């Protein structure tokens, strides 16, 4: 197969030209060619004595020649019936004589011809020497082609090998470069950076880690690594790490890490798994962030706000005491002082409920919900047997510190009023307080049962009614409805849900 020689359309080569020139010299012709045929196409690897533009017209000579075995000779084309009308014979080229030896590959296929052409007819054809030379030179051309093919193949395989080596080199350079870049980034980070194998073995620590711990060698195993963690935190940190290794979930834990000079410092440890295309974890990349200063600030802040909160609560007690002492010398002010002190007490309770708490001072209730707060507020009215006399049912809701004051004042007034004039003034009296969501509103219904007969519109005397209206309509932007149609006072408070958690609402809007 000609294709396997990969020779078509290649540049002229001296070895082919030399052989072709020798053929022309020995055969004493002005023109000699190495023609190669692929299908209908004829192409010259070498041409002596013929201009470039000539060529394809020769096909009929070579096509015919290739159909013959051995050397093919046309002694005088002008009288040969096959060529007599050929353009190369009748035209300006004026060819008369053609002799060609086939180029035969090792499979016995004729790939083309080594041929000589003359404008003079040669009635005697080729001499014996010329005939033999043409055959030998044709074999030589084949030998050149074979050698060429072998060389090409070797060059190709050499090139492939070189290319493969190049690719490998580039890849390893890239890898080294990316490793170096990673290390440069990792070392410039203010955090400690490490990586670990899927089995949890830490195989890399950045410079910051060594700076922090003061160690000069990476720990050899998990025990050595975890030895840097404070004993109080070690078990927890290791458990979190083992859990992440087992389930592939990101790892995040705070622990105290031994600093080379500064004792143990709080550190936030985090790690993310790197997965391959199959989803298997191939490596863990982790960071350690020194959060000691933040922790200390947090503690100071918490202490400060607890201290402040405690002082505020104490001020309620001082004001209460001041009122009592002041009223002592004015017997007519005694009732006033008592009710004012009780209202202050309700405010203090509201404050106690919503203020920032430390772990020690946190009330033993779950969350800041309306029902939990009201239960606490009404504890003072519980029966002697400890059974609540204000029964709270319905939908509970979250409420925050800004709503606590009006809610505390509202229900304090209702409860003290009930204790003086309403259901709670009778041993068997009770109150049903129903909380219900209605769209974005919260409806609170206070219904008294078993109190004294009501003879007309209920009257909450004096400042109490003003306080009710101020709390509901003023601060909570709600509606207040007092009703006496039933067996006791019924108060309906209708407030927007958002008014119970103004802080949360404001945050959601922002």
């Amino acid at each position, binding site marked *: 197969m000609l294709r396997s020689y990969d020779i078509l359309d290649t540049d002229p080569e001296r070895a082919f030209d030399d052989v072709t020139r020798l053929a022309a010299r020995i055969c004493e012709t002005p023109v000699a060619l190495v023609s190669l045929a692929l299908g209908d196409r004829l192409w010259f690897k070498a041409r002596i004595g013929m201009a470039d533009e000539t060529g394809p017209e020769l096909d009929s000579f070579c096509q015919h020649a290739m159909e013959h075995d051995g050397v093919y000779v046309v002694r005088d084309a002008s009288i040969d019936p096959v060529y007599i009308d050929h353009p190369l014979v009748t035209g300006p080229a004026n060819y008369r004589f053609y002799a060609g030896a086939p180029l035969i590959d090792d499979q016995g296929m004729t790939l083309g011809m080594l041929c000589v052409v003359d404008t003079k007819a040669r009635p005697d054809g080729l001499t014996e020497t010329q005939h033999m030379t043409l055959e030998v030179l044709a074999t030589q051309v084949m030998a050149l082609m074979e050698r060429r093919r072998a060389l090409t193949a070797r060059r190709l395989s050499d090139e492939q090998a070189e290319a493969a080596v190049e690719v490998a080199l580039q890849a390893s350079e890239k890898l080294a470069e990316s490793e170096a870049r990673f290390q440069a980034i990792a070392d410039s980070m203010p955090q400690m950076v490490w990586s670990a194998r899927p089995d949890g073995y830490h195989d890399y620590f950045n410079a910051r880690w060594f700076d922090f711990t003061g160690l000069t060698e990476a720990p050899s195993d998990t025990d050595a690594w975890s030895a840097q963690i404070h004993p109080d935190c070690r078990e927890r940190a290791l458990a979190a790490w083992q859990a992440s290794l087992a389930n592939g979930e990101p790892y995040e834990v705070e622990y105290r890490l031994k600093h080379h000079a500064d004792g143990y410092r709080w550190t936030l440890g985090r790690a993310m798994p790197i997965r391959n295309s199959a989803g298997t974890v191939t490596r863990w990349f982790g960071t350690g962030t020194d959060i000691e200063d933040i922790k200390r600030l947090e503690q100071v802040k918490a202490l400060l706000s607890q201290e402040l909160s405690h002082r505020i609560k104490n001020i309620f*007690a001082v004001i209460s*005491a001041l009122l009592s002492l002041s009223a002592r010398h004015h017997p007519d002010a005694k009732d006033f002082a008592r009710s004012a002190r009780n209202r202050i007490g309700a405010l203090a309770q509201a404050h106690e409920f919503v203020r920032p708490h430390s772990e020690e001072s946190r009330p033993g209730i779950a969350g800041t919900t309306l029902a939990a707060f009201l239960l606490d507020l009404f504890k003072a009215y519980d029966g002697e047997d400890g059974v609540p006399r204000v029964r709270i049912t319905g939908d509970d809701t979250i409420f925050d510190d800004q709503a606590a004051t009006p809610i505390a004042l509202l229900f304090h007034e209702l409860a003290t009023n009930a204790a003086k004039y309403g259901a709670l003034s009778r041993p068997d009296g009770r109150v049903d307080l129903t909380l219900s969501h209605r769209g974005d509103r919260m409806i609170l219904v206070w219904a008294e049962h078993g109190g004294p007969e009501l003879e007309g519109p209920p009257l909450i005397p004096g400042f109490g009614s003003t306080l009710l209206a101020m709390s509901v309509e003023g601060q909570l932007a709600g509606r207040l409805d007092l009703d006496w149609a039933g067996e006791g006072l019924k108060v309906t408070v209708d407030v927007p849900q958002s008014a119970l958690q103004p802080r949360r609402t404001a945050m959601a809007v922002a």
Partner: protein
Amino acid sequence: MKGRILIIEDEILIASQLRDVLEDLDYTVVGMAANVSAARRLVLAGGIELALVDIHLSDGPTGLDLGREIGQGAGITVLYLTANPEMVRDGVPGTFGVMSKPTDDDSVRTAVAFAMQSRRGGPSRTAPRSLTVFG
């Protein structure tokens, strides 16, 4: 004379108001102390049956340990009266109970009467709502 009471409270207004309430109820207030050393001096003088103890005093949050000390060492019935009742919600050995501050006169009256009665081994009743008795 219903009983001898020591008030340990650093806010003079609160201490004075408590004294007035207790004296109105015919108790004897043997003294008011604003810190640990003043309290110890008064305790050393003896004769105290009950102490109302604030946790935060003028020398810091020293009331908690002071309550334990005089409750266990001097046999005084200690009633904490604090704005921070959760600090002792798990109870303090040798002390009686805790009340939340601010409180009203009636709660002081019932709580002190209950504590005095318990001290003297009177018939057991349910503790008043305003008082948390340590178990």
